[in-house]
């Protein structure tokens, strides 16, 4: 079983650890985090608004920044500074915007903790015995019912 688990986990881990970047992929990736600011409410690379006053300029600036800067966060910060913080729809990983990333993680963490506490309390609690007379037949009947329900046959 352990061997099987290793076989299963290893490729996933390898695949997740791998990650090389090329300029086109970076351009697509960063462009997918920037919104066109003309008011069309579309992502920069998806803006299908012909004659858009902003997208051509923004795309040109994106190309230039991707070629000049190796750090993706710096490119996004450039857009935040020049086009306003609402131009980038992915929150940054510092300051107030970090909260957006932390909240879901905290929520999941607290949820996991609660689930573990619930499991612990269940395991410690004795099972409740159903009230009723203790004649053999109804009890057996109840057991049969329970078996039917739990095995679903």
């Amino acid at each position, binding site marked *: *079983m352990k061997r*099987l688990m290793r*076989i*299963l986990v290893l*490729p*996933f881990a390898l*695949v*997740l650890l*791998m*990650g*090389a*970047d090329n300029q086109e*992929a970076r351009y697509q990736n960063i462009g*997918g*985090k920037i*919104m066109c600011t003309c008011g069309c409410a*579309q*992502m920069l690379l*998806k803006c*299908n*608004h*012909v*004659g858009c006053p902003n997208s051509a300029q923004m795309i040109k600036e994106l190309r230039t920044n991707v070629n000049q800067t190796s750090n993706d966060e710096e490119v996004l910060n450039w857009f935040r500074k020049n086009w*306003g*913080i*609402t131009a980038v*729809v*992915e*929150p940054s990983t510092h300051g*107030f*915007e970090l*909260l*957006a*990333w932390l*909240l*879901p993680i905290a*929520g*999941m963490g607290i*949820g*996991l903790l609660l*689930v573990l506490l*619930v*499991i612990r309390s*269940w*395991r*410690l*609690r*004795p*099972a*409740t015995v*159903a009230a009723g007379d203790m004649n*053999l*037949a109804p009890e*057996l*009947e109840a057991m049969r019912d329970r078996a039917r*329900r*739990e*095995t*679903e*046959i």
Partner: protein
Amino acid sequence: MPLLGNFCLLFALALAIYCFVVGVIAAVSKNAVGYRLAETARRAGMASFVAVLLAAVALVYSALTDDFSVAYILHHSNRALPAPYKFAVLWSGQEGSMLFWALLLSCYGFVLRLRHKVDQRLVAMASMVLAGIQVFFLILVNFVAKPFGMMDRVVADGNGLNPLLQYPEMVIHPPMLYLGYVGVSVPFAFALAALIMRYPGEKWIHLTRKWTMIAWCFQSVGILLGAHWAYAVLGWGGYWGWDPVENASLLPWLSGTAFLHSVMMQEKRGMMKVWNIWLIFITFMLSILGTLLTRAGLVSSVHAFAQSSIGPWFTTLLGVVFAVCLIFYIKNRDHLKAENKLESLVSRESSFLFNNLVLLGACFAVLCGTLFPILSEAVRGVKMNLGAPFYNKVMIPIGLFLIFLTGVGPLLAWRSTSYGSIKRNFAIPATVSFTVMVTLMVVWYRSGIRFWTDLNQIYALLSFTLGTLVTATIASEFIRGGRVLQNKLQTNLLAGVYLLMRRNMRRYGGYVVHFGVVLVIIGLAGTAFNKDQEKELGVADSMQIGHYELRNQEYTQDDNANYRSEAALLDVYKDGKYLTRLNPEERWFKASGGQPVHIVANYSTLVEDLYVIYEGSPNGHPFIKALVNPLVNWIWIGVLVIIFGTGMALVPNAAPVTAQVPKAVAVSAMEKQGMRAAGVSE
């Protein structure tokens, strides 16, 4: 007609108030008079449906007859609007959609009250809760968002329907969503009623099971129809943009899905009673919150929902519902104690717990992202909207873990699963999915896809692998069970599988729904391989995208009463061979001040979609954007499978085939054990 509509709405409000107030009195007085009062309340509730229906008919009639003296019709319709869209006017604006909500709610209430004999006391209490909600919506349509408000002057023609809504799916997508969200009110009403009454046992769950599943199915179909509408109409090549309105529809769906799973724990093991009660309360509150978020202008959306004054009303409703739920929970929480304990961590119970954790975690993450602009505005004074990159980063790993649980959960037994059983059950699905993963890696590598350089393609690989795991699990469940019956009843495997399904339609219907979800996931995973290309095409010019070549034959213009349009006629060749002709188009609707709408041309196959958008002609030639979107069709096929699976799960089970034992033998055997012969089933 507007007068009749107004009168019907007022009358419906009076009936709903009577149903609610008299329902409360009847619930308090437990004598014969109370019983008779409850009966009058029930009939008043049923009559309120007729009154609201008449009001809705009056509004539709006003739309069909172009009665622009009604302000709502003036703002949402025009003479040239085709008749089906005039019908859709009922839910295309704020006032109409509130009336539509009230109509569906009273319709659900009508069916519930009609079937009161299933449990008269519980239904009477649930009907009272439902009447309370009805009163809220009828107050709204009578005094706040009036669909029959009159114009003070006569106008020749209306402003027209939002052009984005002039699409066949918009005639069915909103009703589906509304049916889903309003449908949640029924299990909510039963849950609250059962809590108020300290109703023993799990009967409220049995009674609401079908309602919950139907509401969930409508929600799923509604959400995916909305996605299809976005894909076909918005013309940006995608179907889900994590817009606040989309998120608002997803929130109750996620909590509703968690409820559908965890409720099984209560039915089978008498566990998670508090959890289930709160899950259905939360699901109902989330559907109200979604309405509040999108209609009160708290968050901005690309969808055409106007900011309005109904926000405070929904905030009040939310507060009242929460307070009522909390009060009765605190008062009667001792009634919700679990009957059994968890016997093993490796069990179906645990998998449901984690399934609920992940679904609610996903719900919380979406809620955080949706509410973040409000928080950002409060702290920094700027509404910072979070877009797809944020949601994709947070939600894709959660989604992948959820698919993993979907694959693993069904293989775990209730109460406890032995190591041997895990090994036996997992061997084949794990091997098959691992083989698929390795095969995909090799095939992609050979075809030049360097998937390790793109996180989206890595996610796609994991999606295909886990999708295979779920499919293999489902198949193994069917085959294993089918084989048992095949041997027991001396029949063939197919008949065995059929009999297996007929014995437990809910379980196997659920597996079919899981398979539908896998198909949707496969469709979503295809996004990682999307291609797009943009070019200005003069006559006889061509562009290449993937295997496809698009040649512009000509472009045309058209003008009719409703809109003016431009279209390109593109011949499509695949690997040099003629395939089809596509006509991407752009329309400018006259009544809406010339708002442009893209009419996308889509050549769709099971492998990929060639999606072509006419973006305009700034220099006199069409500007064409073409996308190749792989596997998109599997999303819509997945929806059909989900509907089929839900339908299956709603079909009653067939009686199990039992081996015949001669009665005399059975009785004698039971007597030997001191058991009563009455226990023998004949």
